């Protein structure tokens, strides 16, 4: 793994294609796409349903692999490293927020948040967990199980879990797609609060949410249009 420089992009996507088998048919989702996401800041990937947004995010997270091309995180091609190395890279570098929260139902709120710390092997977990839960406004519900939380609360737990181990890259897949307008605004606010020095790549179909980003990448029919800068 090479050492990334301060100015180099955190994510580089080169000629990436991905397709899925549906029965006997092969459905292309991403076709030869290229992109580089600068270190720091809020990047939004916008596109309609089925445009390949979530697939792209899975490829960046290394939880899926491209059919061709390469995905580099910190100048390390994740499709060239082993499954174990990919997991370690994800564990140490990234935090992921899913549209359907994907909280572990058998763990309490604070146990869910503690999980990444446990995996990375960080001590002094309780203080960090308490701080982050305070930041997302769920300190009082730390002993509750996810099933008794509202959608917005569950998503805030998911955000807390994604950032508690202070990853450099935060990936969010439609984090507000499952929430009403007010709750979505609150979640975005929390997201903004916790991002700060990190890089956030968020995929969404909502132009309004994307408008909060520093850079927008429109994804259409499996290919990127030129990025739009909001600032």
């Amino acid at each position, binding site marked *: 793994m090479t050492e990334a420089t301060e100015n180099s992009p955190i994510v580089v996507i080169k000629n990436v294609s991905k397709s899925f088998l549906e029965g006997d048919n092969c459905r292309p989702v991403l076709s030869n796409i290229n992109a580089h996401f600068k270190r720091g800041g809020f990047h939004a990937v916008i596109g309609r349903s089925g445009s390949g947004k979530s697939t792209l995010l899975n490829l960046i997270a290394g939880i899926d692999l491209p059919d061709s091309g390469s995905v580099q995180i910190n100048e390390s091609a994740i499709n060239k490293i082993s499954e174990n190395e990919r997991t370690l890279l994800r564990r140490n570098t990234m935090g992921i927020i899913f549209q359907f929260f*994907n909280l572990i*139902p058998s763990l309490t709120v604070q146990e869910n948040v503690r999980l990444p710390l446990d995996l990375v092997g960080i001590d002094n977990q309780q203080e960090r967990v308490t701080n982050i839960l305070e930041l997302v406004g769920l300190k009082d519900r730390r002993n509750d199980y996810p099933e008794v939380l509202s959608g917005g609360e569950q998503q805030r737990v998911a955000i807390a879990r994604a950032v508690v181990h202070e990853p450099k890259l935060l990936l969010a897949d439609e984090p507000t797609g499952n929430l009403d307008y007010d709750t979505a605004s609150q979640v975005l606010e929390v997201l903004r609060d916790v991002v700060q020095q990190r890089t956030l790549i968020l995929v969404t179909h909502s132009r309004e949410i994307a408008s909060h980003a520093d850079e927008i990448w429109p994804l259409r029919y499996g290919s990127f249009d030129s990025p739009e800068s909001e600032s």
Partner: protein
Amino acid sequence: MKIIFLSWFREILRRPTLTILSIVGVALGIATVVAVDIANESAKRSFLAANETISGSTTHRFTGRITDELYRHLRVDLGLDVTPVVEGLIESDRSNTTQLRLYGVDLLAEISASSNYAWREVSIESAATLLSNPFTVLATRDTANSLGWSVGQEIPVSSADGDFKLTLIGLLEPANPLQAQSLRFVLLTDIATAQSVLGKQGYLSVIHALFDDSVQINSIEAFLPDGVYIESQIGQSDSQAALTRAFQINLTALGLLAFMVAMFLIYNTTSFTITRRQRHIGMIRALGALQRDIVLCALLEVLIIGAIATIIGILVGIQLSTFLLELVEQSIATLYFPIFADITVLSFVTIVKAIMLGIGATILLALPAIRKISSTAPSIAIGRSQVETQSTDSGSKLFVIGCSLAVLGTLVLLGNQHSIVLGFFGIFLVVIGYLQLIPLMTEGLKRLLRPIVKRIFGVQGVLAIRAFSSRPGQTSTTIAVLCLALSATVGVDIMVSSFRQTVDEWLISRLRGDIYITTPSQSDSGLASVDVELLENLEGIASFGLAKWAEIPDASGTTTVFAVDYGENAFNGFQFKKKADVDLWREFNAGAAIVSEPYAYRNSIQIGDTVDLFIGRKSVQFPIIGVFFDYSSDQGIVAIHRDTYIRHFNDRTISSAAIFAKPETDLQTIADTIEQRVLTPRARVWRNQELHDASMQIFDQTFAITYVLRTLAIIVAFVAVLSALATLQIERERELVVLRTIGFTVRQNWSIASFETGVMGLLAGIFSLPAGILMAWLLIWVIEQRSFGWTMKMQLDPLILIGAVTLSVVAALIAGAIVTWRKVRKVPAMALQGMD
């Protein structure tokens, strides 16, 4: 790692039913194997212990027509370390007739002998009382208690020689539980009393001997009178133990069959347990958990399931074994000799076997699922369906594997025609091979069913069979588990019913007489001559025939000879498997022999060979002119004409008589008359039908254990289906709730769930039929022939086949009802809450 483990095991607590079902299934499988093992081992130990306790640690024994004089010569003149025994069965007439073993010994000789008999501890006082007071006996405290006897009490008993009264003068104190068990229902007495009660005055049953290396066996053999033989005690025990081996192998195989069903259950359940965590695993993998972490959690889970199930299985197995042991005793007593196996022997080997199966097999069978789920990309795991989709692709691979296994199994079966173990192994391979075809067959039937169901039941019907598409791997495995258990049922049922029908037909053909008189097999004297005269003079009798059962020495031991003269009509009742191209009846009268099928099988005898029997030191050859079907003994018998027997062996005693009544005669009147006037002690008079029914009753007793083990396999399969459906229904919970939300009634949801499980049961039932018929054919062709030397005609009873399919559908419906009862009734809003 700590939190991953925590989340993993909390998941078990969230849905404990599946884990409990897994444990129950595995435990039941282990319990069956443990119980069969204990029953087998206990029966074997009891038999060996009984031999050891009663005959002591002797090296040789003299058998045949032994006189008191021979014993005196061996002991006094030659100074050999020998002890005589007169033994036989008697009956106690107390409320329920109990069979007892009367054992007459020379107590003075026993006390001075070097071998360690159980009654070495008999006090001098007791020995003196036995010697000085005729008709006195000793028994163990256990025997006395269970028969309600007390010391000093007179006990009425009857033997082949008449009715007697014996006095219990003391109690034997066995040195250990095994000895106590071996001496159960044994009455120890002086040799003279035993000879009087058993009608063996002047004769001994056996002489036990303890020879050291200096004793020349050849020189002893040289002076033995005709009809007396010396044999190694060790060899004798071995040959008797070998008698039960075939039976025990059959039993073990049935136990393993139940375990095989349990193995499928384990495979099914662990696969379900692991794959249902697909989403959970996907989530924690996405957060950074390594494959290794998942493998560790999954292995730990199955290890815990296996360990708990093993402990429960061993405990339940011990309990179950006492019940099985009774049935084993019954079967062994019916087939071979009476045993009293009260002590259950849990050997170290059984425990190791249980652990290996419970923990080892559970982990081994879980490995494919663990490997699959841990290596699946997190995105796929979160996305649900694709892991399963991959398993449908393997249907054709399984087809190839299945065909290969079946071919291999067939080659094993054809390769060795005599080994029972290889026979079972071959059957195992063929059946496992067949089960591999089920995914493809299920897929084929599903495609066939879909348009029909759609046309008849509309969308609801399509929803019901959707489970086959959404979880094809799991559905196929569930069907395979049920199919395996059912095919075992069908196989065993067809085998037993074919056997039963064959024996029934054989009895009808063989029992040509209208009335039979039989004497106890222990009786040396047989039917009294006055009773033969009675038959000659009785009205209503057209003719009668006489027969003698005798144990005649041959080159390798003894042969059971049936010397019969029931007339030509009765001779025609022999059904021949092979026969010489001669006038059989004429040749039989002239001195030829016919042999039973097991005899021919065990001795590899053909038509034209001879049976060599010893008369004193000389052997006589009887040419074989036919091989007849016979199911009365698995060791085989040789039948010769009674005149031939008398000519060679000079023995006119009679074991039984067959009476042929005149037409239109009331058989009951003749039977009653004979019963009233017959003088032979304990002779029994049977009408044809009674003898037939009694024989069939013995047959049913012998196979009682088979039915029990088969039922166990069904119970294990039921648990398997229950756990499989429980998992499938968890998968469908959301769908059922959504259906309720959009307007499906509880009844409609219930119908969908029941239809789905019913179709699974139906498919399993249908698939089990060819497998069951194949298994029955193999059992009949391979196992019964190899174990007992019996040929059976396979009879396909449609009721068995219909019953299996019905059982399958009903079992699946009940399992489905249990699983879905609460789920379909849930209030939709409540059910939707908390669904991730």
